């Protein structure tokens, strides 16, 4: 499959874990992160002390927290991949690299947050060092939150390609329906396109139902070396291709040459080539969905359709379980919970194991994307072993 320099099948997801997702808690983010991690480690049939590599989500628990709570005696690697919502998928690339290098056997990627009960996600941008420039030049003008910073990308797409709000609504409606099928989702009441169209405007063209949730909880996965993965508790899910991509003008969308192209457009050709599969081979796609528009744009950047055709691509339930490309089968950040995309990785592994709540029949190959920090992207393509 892969060449010597490739990470193709250099690692496999062997365990996945989540906490109950909530909107309201008095628990700490660390306790959610540890609980989700423990669930993932047990799912893999491991003990916490077996973990020898850690890539926690930034702005949360640090390696020391895991060493202390898990009693890890010989931690061999720790790092963060600071790409906002692309961090967790980018962490898969990092995990495969350190596994292939022989440094680690079992790497834990994890996240815990109190996005609803703690600091508001919508205003957190101000505290992030990579957005210092926006803090100085855009926030004082009133461009403060992601919804406002991303809306001009969506507006530009609409003006250039005729994309409509009703097409974005298709994404919200399908995603909510998938959430309604989940045991662990926070927004389960189905919605219609009309519900979307009558939801209040946040920053035109983005309405409330174009925006993701603020959530409390945690999620985690264990990535293991292939020689270990074969003998573990669950069917391993092999990572076939993985890459990250950084857009031009990564921290100031205003200055980006093409507002409608994300970092994912640079990652996608690399990950598909590494995996040796085509778009038509993908049975299920978990696509980072902080906003409906970002899903549509990524489907273009992934190569499922041409730039500008994303609106037509998502119409008529195309992203549903029986559609042309089932997307966000767990309900995503829009309706399950905002776990910064860790829940997307968990869901892809469950789909490929055949144990998802809303199962795509015979899903053998799938992909998961991350998107964050104003345009960073990451992509992992996986198959069941």
């Amino acid at each position, binding site marked *: 499959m892969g060449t010597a320099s490739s990470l193709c099948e250099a690692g496999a997801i062997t365990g996945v874990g989540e906490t109950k997702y909530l909107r309201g808690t008095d628990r700490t983010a660390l306790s959610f992160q540890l609980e989700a991690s423990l669930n993932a480690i047990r799912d893999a049939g491991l003990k916490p002390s077996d973990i020898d590599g850690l890539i926690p989500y930034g702005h949360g628990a640090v390696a020391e927290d895991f060493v202390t709570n898990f009693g890890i005696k010989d931690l061999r690697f720790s790092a963060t991949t600071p790409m906002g919502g692309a961090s967790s998928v980018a962490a898969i690339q990092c995990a495969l690299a350190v596994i292939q290098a022989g440094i680690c056997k079992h790497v834990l990627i994890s996240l815990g947050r109190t996005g609803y009960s703690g600091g508001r996600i*919508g*205003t957190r941008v*101000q505290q992030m060092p990579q957005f210092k*420039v926006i*803090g*100085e*030049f*855009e*926030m*004082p*003008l*009133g*461009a*403060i*939150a992601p*919804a*406002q910073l991303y*809306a*001009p*990308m969506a*507006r*530009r797409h609409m*003006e*250039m390609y005729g994309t409509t709000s009703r097409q974005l609504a298709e994404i919200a409606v399908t995603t909510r329906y998938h959430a309604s099928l989940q045991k662990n989702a926070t927004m389960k009441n189905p919605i219609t396109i009309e519900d979307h169209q009558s939801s*209040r*405007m*946040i*920053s*035109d*063209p*983005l309405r409330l139902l174009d925006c993701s949730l603020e959530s409390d909880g945690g999620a985690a996965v264990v990535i293991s070396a292939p020689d270990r993965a074969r003998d573990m508790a669950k069917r391993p899910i092999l990572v076939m291709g993985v890459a990250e991509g950084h857009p031009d003008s990564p921290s*100031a969308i*205003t*200055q980006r040459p093409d*507002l409608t192209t994300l970092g994912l457009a640079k990652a996608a050709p690399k990950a598909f080539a590494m995996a040796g599969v085509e778009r038509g081979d993908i049975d299920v796609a978990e696509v980072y969905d902080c906003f409906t528009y970002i899903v549509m744009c990524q489907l273009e950047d992934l190569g499922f359709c041409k730039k500008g055709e994303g609106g037509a691509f998502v119409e008529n339930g195309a992203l549903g379980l029986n559609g042309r490309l089932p997307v966000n089968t767990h309900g995503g950040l829009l309706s399950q919970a905002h776990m910064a995309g860790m829940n997307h990785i968990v869901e892809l592994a469950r789909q490929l194991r055949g144990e998802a709540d809303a199962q795509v029949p015979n899903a053998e190959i799938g992909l998961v994307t991350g998107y964050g920090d104003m345009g960073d992207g990451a992509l992992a393509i996986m198959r069941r072993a």
Partner: protein
Amino acid sequence: MSYDKLVPSPSPETQPYWDGLNEGRLRLQCCGECGKVRHYPRPMCDACWSMKIDWVDASGLGTVHSWTITHYAFHPGFKGDLPYILVTVDLPEGVRMNAQARGIQESALRVGLPVKVVFDRVKDDLTLPVFEAA
């Protein structure tokens, strides 16, 4: 009433931009070697990697590249402005800038709409750029 919106914290590298606004000038940073204009201000030219810095006065004219109309106050200081238009503007100098638009009907917004910058002294030491129809 005291000014209750977010304010910039300029660095030595960015101070000339803000000083320019206070003087009623839109100043853009450019490379002291190759002349490439860049925004936002930063230490190095991405074309020739020179760290020599110059400033040019922009024409103040531009055309709308994209926009958003904000209906929710993500910071309490902006509540009184709602709804407000934020435009992303192509400047003929080759960079873009972002600012609120004033006196432009929502229905008149379109890609390519000509605009010009005006200067809004919001407090003693702070002037913000605003776009009006050209």
